[in-house]
């Protein structure tokens, strides 16, 4: 078996999910090669070489890989796919965007968002917002797989660095032009990498009220998340969204504030180690998954909690 892992990075640093994806590759078993494609991304390629279990890093550098557009990445991956039995990427916004394109160009299925590896061709994946776990077997010659990174512990740093080999870029398809990104500026940790997350729902009532959660998050060194209802109501940007159609998280501590607990939200956070729910509705379904729950008005409880944590 020979596995190709496509690394997500920002040209300077690898995203945390890369080490988890490499861990999933290790469970399949076989030789693991990592592809780092970007523009002036040598540092990211060298970082990938230092993860345990990586036998080689392929480094493709070209101006048209800035922005990591699906058309261009897919063409590159397909150009080198022939030698591999598996192609893996994190099931993040990055992986979801280009991996199905790779699969279709290879005329193979994609197995999306796997949470367990049963064997080299059999994987477990959640469906219906995690209401069911399906065990699926791929009959294709190349398995194209995206990995739920919260389901695999990150591979550790290796004892020695794997070799980094430069490879030629694929031609620029020029179907799509990258105009730019507007990234949310925040001093807080990224949602998918945070150890603690403070998340708000419709009960927050307004964008202004999210400041209460931000104060609590800053006290805990936490990231701020939200339910789909809070995004729909325009309280916070979409990249805060935790749930079936947003981000999947599994921090050590998840504090759900003013979130009723729709199945679509639970799908994104129920694998958190400890869940705290604060809601004034004693019947809120979120309490069914909470490790600790407090029936109280959030506008009283959250400032109290922030003050209590400051008092130590």
């Amino acid at each position, binding site marked *: 078996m020979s596995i190709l892992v496509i690394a997500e990075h920002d040209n300077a640093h690898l995203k945390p999910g890369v080490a988890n994806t490499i861990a999933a590759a290790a469970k399949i078993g076989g030789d693991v090669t990592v592809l780092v494609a970007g523009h002036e991304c040598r540092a990211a390629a060298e970082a990938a070489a230092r993860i345990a279990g990586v036998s080689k890093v392929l480094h493709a550098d070209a101006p048209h890989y800035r922005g990591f557009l699906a058309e261009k990445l897919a063409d590159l991956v397909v150009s080198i796919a022939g030698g591999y039995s598996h192609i893996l990427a994190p099931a993040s916004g990055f992986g979801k965007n280009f991996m199905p394109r790779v699969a279709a160009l290879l005329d193979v299925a994609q197995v999306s968002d796997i949470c367990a590896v049963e064997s080299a061709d059999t994987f477990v994946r959640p469906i219906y917002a995690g209401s069911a776990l399906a065990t699926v*077997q791929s009959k294709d010659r190349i398995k194209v797989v995206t990995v739920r990174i919260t389901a695999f512990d990150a591979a550790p740093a290796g004892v020695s660095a794997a070799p980094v080999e430069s490879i030629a870029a694929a031609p620029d398809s020029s179907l799509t032009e990258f105009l730019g990104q507007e990234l949310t500026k925040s001093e807080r940790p990224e949602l998918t990498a945070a150890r603690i997350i403070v998340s708000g729902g419709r009960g927050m009532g307004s964008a202004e009220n999210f400041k209460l959660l931000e104060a609590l998050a800053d006290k805990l060194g936490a990231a701020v998340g939200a339910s789909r209802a809070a995004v729909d109501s325009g309280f916070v940007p979409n990249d805060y969204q935790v749930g079936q159609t947003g981000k999947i998280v599994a921090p050590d501590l998840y504090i759900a504030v003013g979130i009723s607990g729709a199945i679509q939200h639970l799908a994104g956070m129920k694998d958190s180690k400890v869940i705290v729910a604060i809601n004034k509705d004693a019947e809120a379904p979120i309490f069914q998954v909470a490790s600790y729950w407090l029936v109280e008005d959030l506008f009283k409880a959250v400032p109290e909690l922030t003050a209590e944590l400051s008092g130590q």
Partner: protein
Amino acid sequence: MKVLVAVKRVVDPNVKVRVKADGSGVDTANLKMAMNPFCEIAVEQAVRMKEAGVVSEIVAVSVGIAQCQETLRTAMAMGVDRGILVETNAEIQPLAVAKIFKAIVAKEAPRLVIMGKQAIDDDCNQSGQMLAALLNWPQATFISKVTINGEAAEVTREIDGGLENLRLKLPAIVTTDLRLNEPRYVTLPNIMKAKKKPLEVVKPEDLGVDVTPRLATLRMQEPPKRSAGVKVADVKELVAKLKNEARVIG
């Protein structure tokens, strides 16, 4: 400009599904069905573009059993001009959906295809990207904004950490995210009007598409349940539990 939209019939998102006792699948018998929410957003976008004079005709396409006609009628009640059902009782996986749509695109020659980013039943998030690959068209997934500007579509995408702006050469494929729009409710007069709109039924074989599944589902199971939690009386008790029992804060 002609637009193609994809609509999938799924279990209503407010209904909780259960795994069958024998683990052979999910029990969907007698459950309320609805249009996939991201497909509704796709339909709404096409209708708004038609209302703005950017689009001349909207064709909705669904793949599945005969009852998917109801989903197409809903799309027509929202403002779609006509529907095509690719009728089959077989299990249709995303690669097969993409191949079917490729065949329909060859017949209909749209300038833009709008699809939902993900169906809320299989949660695959694949078909739009796969169709773009098969056609060698540009793609923009998870869009929150689209503007047609001559021979290009300018889009804003939802990405992890913020937004991304792209310009795609038409023809192109976009997939919808939540904030693109808020779909309208269908009205009774529009439901009546939709009944008179053309709805063509074809089979995958008519399109020359092989829909054989590539993935075999071996079994299904319920996810593990979380153990019951503890109700705390106040914030002080909560902090004490988090520090001394769960040990997740210092």
